[in-house]
């Protein structure tokens, strides 16, 4: 029947009160006043509780347990009462039972022997006639993380998996991964994985959902795909999707997202079943559905189908921007991936990403990045207008970001450039200190991209030069002065003003100043002779920095031998820059778009990089016989020594070959400040462990055979120095019989284990990692700079030699922070005389906390800190190498400064350059 509705409906001022009688439920559960249990007398508290727990009066006993739990809640240790609390476990009051269970769960670790006492009750409860009690018992036992308890749990758990009540079955299903976590072998041996698989076929949707979650978790832990989805069973899961509750839908969708569809038809039929989920109120369901659809789209080629799917994905993505800020943040991080992966979906919606005044800053910053990704010839006017609005706001961080974004738009779109320059001019005219500084950096980028245009900005910039105090802005301004020296009348005066304070400037500025003055000299040689000799003298004779000195000498020699060639080199065309600060590496992007909503998709990092929890990956057993074969004979060893000797003679340059490949010669000379810092390098997201090519496929082995390439990295992984290598086979034969040896080295590293590497077919590659133990093969020589590990790999093709560079971080120990008492004597012993000071420039001012956490990444431990008058914070840190050398430092973090000062003191001076290099790298990587 259809009710015609009156519009407006009958007036009513208020809703009926919450409808208690209607629902037959208490609507408002007023004050319980459990708060009173938190008030206990100080004197003889534990003793008092003990007595009350043994009271005959049931109510009194229950109150006593509540008091115990209240104490536990506020963090007091009441584990001493374990036996007394367990004494109350035999009760038919369910509230009391839950409290006792909660207590046992919390303190079982502290009292393992006593915990066994409770086992019998658990086992008995697991057969109780009330399903609520059965579930409670299974659930709680699974949370007692004791091996002893696990044994007793198995039999009741097995029974409960077959329970007639679905509530018990769903609790048991989620209990299996708990037990797996404690004792994986037991779970596998006892066939619980099979039981869990059987539960996938259960008639109850919630049991299925929990079984899916359980299997997915165990798969993740053991590295095997237990869900084993195929065309057949995927449809069972899709069917369960309509039946289970919202969280269950997320478990199932997340599992389906790991399935590789078999082709276009399979993909389309999955998307048909999943698109309805896009209308779910729960954002977790929506994002999980988007993830599944995006994955299926990979396998669909029909452009019409793709277009329709893209059209369906747009509205839910935009709606996510109206959800709670925290959800929005996750969604925006995901949208960045989606925009890069499928730019079409949101191409015409840049307006939806305009910031609201009340958006939290973390949302605004993400939105601006997405605006820059979506900017196009059609919408740049609007975007620039909006960015200008933000750039005149009050939040410094956001204003800076907006100014930089204007530059990004200009670099990205040639047509937008004129407009962007005008906006920047207006902003420069405001003379707001940080706006001008950012604008300066941005204009430099624009000049790099579009040389010799938009010179109207030059005068405005020169006028506001006095406000520049940040290294990056200064360096940019100096670059501009050098580059346009011919067109700025007083360029020489302006540059000279910087020269007086040359030695006080950060390295970044010094380098630029050197280059700029050389450029100036080449353009106006008559009047700047003095300046150029002065700056060359400063750089080569007075500076202690190697890079600066090297560059100074290069210019000096160039100028003194062939000024014409110098002109071609220094004033030559520079390679064009591109804005790729947003683009992720393709492999990472593919990986992350299949992991939308997961933490990795928020951080834009491979999960392996932050999931520290050890996976119980089954270790492949190394064939003993093969291992014996792999012993090196004397000939090998001699060959290796020869190789090593040659390496050493070739000097440090050869070691760089691998890393600097790709940088053109021209670029090298302009490097340091501008040439290579397109915005991309500033904001480049953290990457996976960067392996470096250490052995090119063209380098022959000991017997002259080639076709084997290695890239490697030597890092610390979970407290163990580990050599990570990628072997590639470009020879025509399958490679096998791998073995590894390393040369003697200062820290005495030697492989802890045999090299386990599967056979490698022609054209494919394999990842291997070898844990290293220190102190085994000491060379008894001081460490080199950079640190090197010389490695020989034996294969069926040949024996290959190479060396791997590594950072000091690989030999610094975890958890070795010195106490203040230990710190002070060493600090004073080394004294001012043994102290080395080093400035590190960073891309933006950092606060002490983030400096601390970055230092911690390299096992540089925080000891203490103090604040000085100008607002700077001094952090004192210690680091310890695995051969027990300490490196102490005082790190000065000044507010608003783009550089960090590190004063290092150590009794092992040879470590200082290594330590400084490590920190520079850490802060450069952002």
């Amino acid at each position: 029947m259809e009710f015609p509705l009156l519009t407006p409906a009958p007036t009513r001022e208020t809703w009926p009160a919450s409808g208690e009688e209607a629902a037959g439920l208490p609507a408002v559960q007023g004050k319980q006043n459990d708060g009173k249990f938190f008030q206990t007398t100080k004197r003889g508290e534990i003793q008092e509780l003990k007595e009350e727990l043994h009271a005959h009066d049931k109510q009194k006993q229950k109150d006593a347990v509540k008091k115990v739990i209240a104490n536990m809640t506020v963090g007091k240790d009441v584990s001493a009462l374990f036996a007394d609390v367990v004494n109350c476990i035999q009760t038919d009051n369910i509230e009391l039972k839950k409290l006792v269970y909660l207590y046992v769960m919390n303190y079982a670790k502290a009292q393992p022997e006593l915990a066994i006492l409770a086992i019998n009750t658990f086992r008995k409860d697991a057969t109780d006639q009330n399903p609520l009690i059965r579930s409670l018992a299974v659930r709680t036992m699974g949370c007692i993380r004791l091996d002893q308890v696990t044994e007793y749990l198995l039999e009741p758990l097995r029974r409960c998996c077959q329970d007639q009540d679905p509530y018990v079955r769903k609790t048991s299903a989620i209990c299996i991964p708990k037990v797996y976590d404690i004792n994986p072998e037991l779970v596998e041996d006892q066939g619980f994985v099979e039981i869990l698989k059987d539960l996938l076929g259960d008639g109850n949707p919630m049991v299925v959902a929990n079984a899916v979650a359980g299997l997915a978790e165990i798969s993740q832990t053991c590295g095997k795909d237990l869900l084993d989805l195929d065309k057949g069973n995927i449809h069972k899961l899709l069917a369960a999707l309509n039946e289970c509750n919202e969280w269950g839908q997320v478990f199932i969708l997340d599992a389906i997202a790991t399935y590789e569809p078999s082709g276009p038809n399979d993909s389309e039929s999955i998307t048909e079943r999943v698109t309805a989920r896009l209308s779910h109120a729960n954002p977790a369901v929506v994002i999980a559905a988007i993830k599944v659809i995006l994955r299926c789209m990979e396998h669909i080629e029909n452009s019409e189908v793709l277009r329709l799917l893209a059209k369906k994905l747009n509205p839910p993505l935009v709606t996510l921007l109206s959800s709670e800020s925290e959800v929005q943040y996750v969604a925006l991080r995901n949208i960045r991936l989606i925009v890069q992966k499928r730019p079409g979906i949101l191409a015409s919606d840049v307006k939806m990403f305009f910031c609201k005044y009340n958006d939290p800053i973390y949302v605004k910053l993400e939105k601006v990045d997405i605006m820059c990704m979506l900017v196009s010839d059609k919408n740049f006017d609007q975007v620039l207008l909006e960015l200008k609005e933000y750039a005149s706001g009050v939040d410094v961080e956001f204003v800076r970001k907006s100014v930089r974004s204007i530059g990004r738009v200009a670099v990205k779109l040639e047509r937008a450039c004129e407009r962007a320059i005008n906006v920047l001019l207006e902003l420069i005219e405001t003379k707001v200190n940080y706006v001008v500084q950012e604008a300066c950096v941005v204009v430099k980028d624009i000049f790099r991209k579009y040389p010799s245009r938009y010179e109207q900005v030059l005068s405005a910039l020169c006028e506001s030069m006095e406000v520049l105090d940040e290294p990056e802005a200064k360096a940019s301004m100096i670059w501009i002065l050098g580059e346009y020296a011919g067109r700025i009348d007083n360029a020489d005066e302006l540059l000279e003003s910087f020269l007086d304070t040359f030695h006080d400037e950060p390295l970044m500025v010094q380098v630029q100043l050197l280059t700029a003055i050389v450029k100036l000299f080449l353009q106006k040689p008559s009047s700047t002779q003095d300046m150029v000799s002065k700056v060359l003298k400063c750089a080569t004779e007075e500076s202690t920095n190697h890079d600066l000195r090297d560059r100074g000498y290069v210019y000096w020699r160039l100028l003194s031998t062939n000024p014409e060639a110098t002109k071609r080199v220094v004033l030559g065309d520079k390679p064009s820059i591109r804005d790729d600060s947003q683009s992720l590496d393709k492999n990472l992007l593919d990986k992350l778009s299949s992991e939308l909503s997961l933490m990795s998709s928020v951080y834009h990092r491979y999960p392996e990089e932050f999931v520290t929890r050890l996976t119980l990956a089954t270790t492949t057993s190394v064939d003993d016989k093969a291992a014996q074969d792999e012993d090196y004979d004397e000939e090998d060893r001699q060959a290796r020594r020869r190789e090593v000797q040659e390496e050493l003679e070739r000097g440090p340059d050869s070691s760089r070959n691998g890393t600097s490949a790709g940088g053109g010669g021209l670029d090298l000379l302009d490097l340091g400040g501008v040439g290579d810092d397109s915005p991309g390098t500033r904001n480049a997201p953290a990457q996976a462990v960067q392996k470096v090519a250490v052995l090119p496929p063209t380098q022959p082995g000991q017997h002259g055979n080639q076709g084997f390439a290695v890239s490697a990295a030597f890092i610390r992984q979970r407290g163990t120095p580990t050599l990570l290598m990628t072997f590639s086979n470009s020879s025509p034969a399958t490679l096998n019989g791998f073995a590894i040896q390393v040369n003697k080295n200062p820290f005495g590293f030697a492989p802890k284990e045999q090299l386990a590497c599967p056979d490698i077919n022609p054209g494919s590659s394999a990842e291997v990692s070898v844990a290293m133990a220190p102190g085994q093969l000491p060379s008894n020589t001081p460490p080199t700079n950079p640190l090197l590990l010389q490695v020989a790999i034996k294969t069926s093709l040949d024996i290959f030699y190479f060396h791997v560079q590594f950072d000091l971080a690989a030999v610094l120990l975890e958890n070795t922070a010195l106490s203040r008492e230990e710190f002070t004597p060493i600090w004073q012993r080394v004294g001012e005389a043994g102290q080395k000071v080093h400035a590190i420039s960073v891309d933006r001012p950092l606060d002490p906390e983030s400096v601390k956490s970055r230092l911690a990444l390299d096992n540089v431990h925080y000891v203490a800190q103090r604040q000085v008058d100008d607002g700077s914070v001094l952090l004192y840190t210690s680091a310890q190498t695995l051969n027990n050398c300490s490196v102490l430092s005082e790190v000065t973090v000044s507010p608003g400064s783009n550089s960090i000062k590190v004063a290092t003191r150590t009794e092992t001076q040879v470590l200082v350059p290594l330590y400084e290099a490590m920190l520079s790298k850490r802060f450069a990587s952002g």
Partner: protein
Amino acid sequence: MAGASAVFIMDMKGKVIISRNYRGEVPMNITERFQQHVIDAEDAVIKPVFCEDGISFAWIQYNNLYLLAVTQRNSNATLIVAFLYRLAEVLRDYFNELEEESIKDNFVITYELLDEMMDNGYPQTTEVKILREYIKTQSHQLSVDQMRPPTAVTNAVSWRSEGIKHKKNEIFLDVVERLNLLVSANGSVLRSEILGALKMKSYLSGMPELKLGLNDKLLFEATGRPVAKGKSVEMEDIKFHQCVRLARFENDRTISFIPPDGEFELMSYRLNTHVKPLIWVEAVVDPGHSRSRIEYMIKAKSQFKSRSVANNVEIHIPVPSDVDSPSFKTSIGTVRYIPDQDCIVWSVKQFQGQKDYIMTANFGLPSVGAENRDAYMKAPMSVKFEIPYFTVSGVTVRYLKIIEKSGYQALPWVRYITQNGDYQLRMV
């Protein structure tokens, strides 16, 4: 994918009020880290989901509490954040108010709920109406024998128990639309967006089957029904409560469902149409010659039908932080100066359609101006209002069919209202 290792509820200083360790992966003193990172840090670096040393933190703020979940795995971040919001909602429903005191006063129930709503880090039953059936406060405590898990917990219809009885069967439906609007200083609408919600209060017995009909353009098109122009509305995106059969909607755009009992949000929708400001505000600021006084002339105009009335209108206008001796003149309503928000609020109880009013405000300024005095101009003006019997999108409920096997008659009541959302007008 995996859930949370532990969940914490903390006060604003980062002190833990109550916590539950689900997986034992992350040490429970991890809250000290959280404290350093969120509570002691600057705004600019805080993120709602972040990772440190392999431990991921996801958190929300509710009243004066932090709700935090931590994990060591590559867990589903949206799932965790959405769960924290749901947890807050359930606790608020149980205790009326969710705050430090109410948790302390109900810590036993809080533990029970934490145990029931999440297991091994995976969200389980989070429907408050179902939870209430087996997790009760002392006064309604049942003995063990009476207590059973409601079948709804594991049912396909996990939001409603069987056997509900009401003396009077009725259902209330509120169509609430919020208008998000951003207007530039020159009067052009930069962004306008309507966020609508259908909120229900259902007091129906048994297991009623409901079908809701809206003037949904796509539905009309699908059924080939001819409609007069302007009578149907095209909603850009619709989100449904989990009771709605999504596959059915996807198929033929029928909204069919078995409702939960009591109050819930049936659906929400979004429209991205160009809307002219319902209440338009213009500010003329005269900083004066001597910089010792500042004068505002504010003009407010209602641009909806003259039959309608906007209730409880509040217009917020930012002023410099160092103004003094305010004086106001207005033809309607009252004006207050709120120093700690650096703004004046012009309140009008009832603002009829098609009217305009003027208010003038005068302030003194100290001779030594505050640094950055003009910063106030950066904040936009904002307007709050409620217009009953009116949806700005034109969405109307055409019918609500209620079918229950006992065959009772039930009365549907419908009400419409339009409110401000993020409704802002820039001053410069």
